[in-house]
Structure formats: C-alpha cells, structure tokens
C-alpha cells in the first residue's frame, strides 16, 4: 500500500470541500444483473474521477448518483463495521468501504460475492448465510443460575475468545470458501467463528451441543484449510485458526 503522508492526505481531503482536484481516474468494470431487464448478467464500465483516499464505496456511489441510478448495492455505515457492503474486488472479497481508490486505481473489477444467489447487481440473497449462523445456537447458553451481578470471568478467560467476537457477519469469509461454493449446505467459516465465540466462552455450557452440530457432514470437517477465509476477513479475525481449534476440540476434548 502506498501510504501518503499526513500532508498529502490533508491536501486531498481539503480538495474534497473546495471542489478542486488532484483527483485520479478509476475505471470500474461492474458485473450487472437485473432479472427485470434480462435473464443473464452483463458487464458495465464506468470511468470516475476520485480522490486517492476516497473509498471504493464512494466511487460506486459516484456511479450510482451521477451516471446510473439503477446500480444496486447494499451499504450503510461506510466504515467497515456494519458488514453490508461485501463485494468481490479484483477477485477478492472486500468491504467496499474498506478499499481505498488509490489501492485499486487505475482500474478494478467489481462483482457480487460468490456462492449466494445474486438478486440484483451486487445484492445477493443472504438467507442461506444466516441459516448457517442460526444453526450453531448463536447465543449464550448458561448454567441456569441467576446471579445478582455479573458472572465473573477472568481477563484470561475473556481473552480466549476475543478474536471471534469481532465478527460482523459480512459473509466475506464464507463466500470466499471453495467448499461453500460447491455445497451451500456447508455451514461455512462465519458460522464456525460464531460457534467458536461461544464454545470458548467460560460462561457458556453448550460447547458439546455446538460441536455435535459441527461434527455433522455439513459441519466443520468439510474445511480443507485453504486460508481464503482468513485472507478475506475485513476484521482481521484468524478465521482458519478458529476453525482448526474447533476441529481439534471435537477430536480431542471431552465435552
């Protein structure tokens, strides 16, 4: 990544308000699909002028707002925490709000994430993804006691599952997984990450139940450890490591 200096960044940012420019050209090639218009997908190309530190999401907005209002995508927070705008950028899953124009210019290819049915342009059907999430009992199951204050948990116990609490359910990992592409029944890495978050939480008592679910034929052993998921995660979660930890616990731990 070409890191600009503070001065450069500020110059660029100020231009945004002033309307002046040291803008650069970004040529976007976007895979389109709209069953109301035609049966198969097609490619459209757009050339936009953007500031180097603008987000790819800003460039897609530029297209939508100034060139083609029919371009459809999901987005909300625009700073990589809501998980709405997972797309494939030059063949890799990314959040559109976490890619800077300067890192993909002068041209980049944008497609919907793979393995989920495309509904329109960059919008996919998220339901199979959330079905995987729901299948792993994605909530704390406690021992039934009702203490008056908090359940104690040591900082070490808390740290044990810290990484997997970061998941924003964007589906970047699951839709980068070749096993998931071939078999929508596979729960996928995001569901395993969710299970991991509870299995290693000292306050939870249902690890055995979750591991039983994940040892099923559509469960965690479908994973072939390609590390696509870890590379795709915009939150920097060690997804493959979490999957391997769950596998190992199923094989060696007594629950």
């Amino acid at each position, binding site marked *: 990544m070409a890191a600009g200096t503070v001065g450069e960044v500020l110059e660029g940012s100020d231009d945004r308000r002033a309307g002046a420019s040291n803008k650069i050209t970004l040529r976007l090639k976007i895979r389109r699909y709209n069953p109301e218009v035609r049966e198969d997908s097609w490619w459209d190309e757009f050339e936009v002028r953007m500031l180097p530190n603008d*987000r790819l999401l800003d460039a897609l907005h530029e297209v939508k707002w100034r060139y083609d*209002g029919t371009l459809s995508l999901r987005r909300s927070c625009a*700073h990589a925490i809501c998980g709405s705008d997972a797309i494939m950028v030059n063949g890799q899953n990314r959040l559109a709000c976490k890619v800077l124009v300067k890192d993909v210019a002068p041209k980049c290819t944008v497609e919907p994430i793979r393995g989920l049915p495309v509904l329109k342009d960059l919008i996919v059907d998220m339901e199979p993804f959330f079905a995987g999430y729901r299948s792993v009992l*994605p909530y704390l199951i406690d021992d039934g006691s*009702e203490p008056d204050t908090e359940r104690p948990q040591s*900082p070490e116990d808390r740290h044990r599952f810290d990484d997997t609490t970061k998941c924003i359910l964007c589906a970047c990992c699951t839709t980068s997984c070749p096993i998931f592409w071939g078999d929508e029944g596979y729960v996928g890495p995001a569901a395993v990450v969710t299970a991991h978050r509870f299995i290693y939480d000292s306050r939870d008592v249902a690890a055995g139940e979750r591991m039983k679910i994940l040892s099923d034929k559509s469960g965690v052993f479908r994973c072939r450890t390609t590390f696509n998921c870890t590379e795709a995660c915009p939150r920097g979660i060690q997804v493959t490591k979490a999957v391997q930890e769950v596998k190992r616990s199923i094989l060696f731990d007594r629950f």
Partner: protein
Amino acid sequence: MTTFHTYDAVIVGAGGAGMRAAIATSDQVRTAVISKLYPTRSHTGTAQGGVCAALANVEEDYPEWHAFDTVKGGDYLVDQPAALIMCGEAPRDIYELEHWGLPFNRTPDGKIDQRRFGGHTRNHGEAPVKRACYAADRTGHMILQTLYQQCVKRNVRFFNEFYVLDLLMNEGRVAGVVAYELATGELHVFRAKSVMMATGGSGRMFKVSSNAHTLTGDAPAIAYRRGIPLEDMEFFQFHPTGVYKMGILLSEAVRGEGGILLNSEEERFMERYAPTVKDLAPRDLISRAIFQEIKEGRGVGPGKDGVWLDVRHLPREVIEEKLPDVTEFARLYLSVEPTKELVPIQPTAHYSMGGIPTDENGLCVTGPEETPVPGLYSAGECACVSVHGANRLGTNSLLDIVVFGRRGGAHMAEWSKTVDHVALPGDPESFTRGLIDPILARTEGVPPVEIRDRLQETMYDLAFVVRTAEGLSKMKGILDELKTQYAQVLIQDKGKMYNTDLMEAVELGFLLDNAEPLVVAALAREESRGGHYRDDFPERDDERWLKHSLAYREEDGSVRLEFKDVKLGTYVPMERKY
C-alpha cells in the same frame, strides 16, 4: 399487490432499542420487527467507547452521581425524573446484557471493567470517574450482536429489508404501518395494536457526519407527516473527534484512556476551557472550543479547520488492546500512524437529542399537557424522553436504548394485551402510494444527489456548531427551495426489485422533514444551551428558554412551534462549568 399482516406489536427498526423492545414483547404478544436493513447492520453497532452504569467496580460511584452528570451534561433541559430512572436502572440492564453473554472487558478480579468518559464525574463534578463499561472499542457492536442473538434464541419474527413509509392511525389510536418490500417493490400493511418507532438518527442531513448513509430520520419524518410533533429538534450533538473531513467517529474513549487535543501550536487548549476535566469535558463544550481555536487562527490542516488528537504518549498495549478499531480508522482512512503521529480531527454531526416525544415508558405524548397517543411508542435516538436534554453525555445513548427499549417494550406488551385492534383506515396504503408512485412515474426533474448535496453542505455551513439568526434564516429559505425541488425529484431506476434509487429518494424527503423543524426551532431559540449555540445569543437564558420545543407540521407544510415545561427535580439549574 398489497399483502396484509396482523400482529399485536410492531417494532420499526432493528437496532439496539428495537431489538431490546422485541425481547420484552415477543414472549408476551405477537410481535413483528420491521427493518430496512438486516438487524446486524444497524448503527448501534458502530458505537465504540462504552455504556455507563454506576457499578462501582473500579471506583466509588452511585447512580445519583450519574443522574446529576446527565442533567448537568444536558444543560438542565433534561427531564429529571427520566434521568433518575435511566441511571437508577442502568446497573440492572448492564448485568442483564452480561448474563446474555456480552463480552465486557474484565478487571483482574473478574468483574466488568470500567473506564472514564466525558462529563462523567465523581461526587457532582469533583473529578472524572470510571463509569463506562466497555468491550474494547466495539461496545455497540457487542450490544447489537448480543441483542440479535437473544432475538434469534426467542424466534423473533423479523421482516428484513422492509422499509416502513407510513404510520396508520384511526380514532386517535395507532392502527398499524405500511411498509415497502425492497426485494419486490410490493406494499405490506401491518395491522397492529401498538407500534414502536425505533429507526435511529438523522445525521445524514449534514455534510460531515458520523452517521451511516441510512440514518435519514425516517421515524421522526413519518410521525411528523401524521401530525405528531417533534421535540427539541434544535439540539443536535456535534462530536468533537470525527476523522478530518470524513466525519467517521473516533471514540471519546481515546480521551478516556488519556488522549488529548492540541491546537496548531501543539497547546493542550482544553486546559483553558475546562480546567477541571480538560479533554473529558462534555462534547458540546469541546466542539465549541475547537471552533473557537479555529476562529482564532490555531486550527490545523490545509483549511486550518481541524485540530490534533494526540495519543502518542499512551502505552502501546492501551492502544492495541483497548482502542484497536479507532486506531485502524486513522491508519486506513488518513494514512496516519497514531502511535507516532498526530491525528487530524474536526467536529462531526453525531446525535439528535430531539425526536418523537415520549414519556418514561416510551409512550408518545403530544402537546404541552403531554396527551398520550394510544399505542404509539418510540425509543432510542429517534425518540425524546428527554434524558439527554440539550447535550447527551457519551455512553448514555447505549444506556438509553437498553433501558427505554426494555421499558417501552414492556409497556406496549401490556397495552396490547388489554385492547383489541382498531379498524384500519379506509384505503390504508393510499398515502404511501401518493409518496412513491409520482416519483416512479416522473420523467423529468431534479436528481436526488443535487438536492442532497446542497442540503448537506448548507446545513453544515449554517446550522452546525455555531449558529446565528442570519444563517438560520438563510437556511430556512434554502430549505423552502429544496422542498420545491424535491417535489420534482427524478430517479432513473423504475423497477420493482431492490430499487435503492427510489429508497434513497424517499430517504431524502425524510431528511428534509427533519431539517426544517430543526432550523425553525433553532431560529426561535434565542439562547445558547448544550448543542445549540447561537453566536448572537451566547448565554443560556433560563427565564425565557428553560423549556422544550415542539414542532408541528401544518397543513400547508409549514412548521408551528409550541413549548412545554421541563420536568425539574432536585438539581437546580446552575452555571455549567467543568
């Protein structure tokens, strides 16, 4: 083709307030939660620093101290009984979230850890106190995930990507809502005994904002168009530390952990404005201090319109363990390495203190006499209880959504058990058809981006941290022009499936209907209080203005103002020093 549904309780919005309410209603009455997003995309998830409760896990603390800070922080426009409820019930709600699995950071002895936050003090202002419970700098993310998990556990019925566009009333009671299904373009009428509006904020009316693109004041606008007044809309919070020019929030937790603000001379200027709590003064004070520094020529950046946030002196482990996300925002979006370099920031439009007026149970109340609207509830940022008064303290928004989401949900469940459905009004979807059909049919007009850009730029220039009669009057004139243009808003997508072009055009109309009450009430309020600062009336004026504003939409589209008393209590308004 319109589809009809019948529920007891319908909740509009699936952020923290909506989902907390759904947990309270779903095992009591037939409940539907309708959101234009997927629930986990809601803006609650972006809250970073913490949620306050006087648990006294780290330092001596009491709910009463918290209530005092809330009232003083709100510049005495807070309804004090509501603040006492919120701060008194805070520990209960925090423990509940913990029992539901929220992964709070822990003290060495295994309790929920707590840290400092702006405006939260020990013993009525003596010194900052450690009151904010937190999960690294993703507390809101963990609250949103935990509440969603609990909804999944309870099989709560969600209608995701359904956009509510109208509130149905009959015989003075709530009859339901009308929603537009994004996937198909079809309308759905939801008949209900009670409706809770919980759609969050409206910060997208300003050019520089921490708010998501989707925060367009939907619920306030829908209610306003149906004759419900909006309370205290002139009070908008401008958070001091937004990413320079982008507005993305850099949490107050940065200063809670020891970060400081510097001007162009690298002077810690907050020592002059708030000698006791310095960089942990409430947000309105700091934003104004920043504007003052800029005005006196000590701003940074090419436009000299920002200041520095400095964390270079903080221990590496504090930055990496307690502020990881915030640090990454600086690295990613500014290419700045905060452990070694100063981070340029500037105030960003963050939070609407005003909204749909409610009582302490989330029930909507109108007029100076607070007449209830049976069956209509609201909670979270789009509501005005009012616990935040003229300026919300950091962390109190997350507390607001869990306390009043729960209380509102419980009350609407009880109400829904005791009444029958009121009949739907005739032709229930006609208002909604009148909203969207002309936009779809229009073949020439003004693109939404032109109207939205001008709205955001002018609101930023004329109705932001520093306001004047001249600027606000000018803004009012611009809004009249923009409304005329909006009547001719033109979109390109005429299809039915995922027509986000149409959705954004509707959102823009909602933003205009939030901006106008804000500007009219701000022009009327000839004083400075909390987030509302008038350069031409720089002092607070309790004699004339210790009162809430209520903005009504008149038949001709103009705004009519009423006022109602503030519910005072033991805290007598005094000068606000920190």
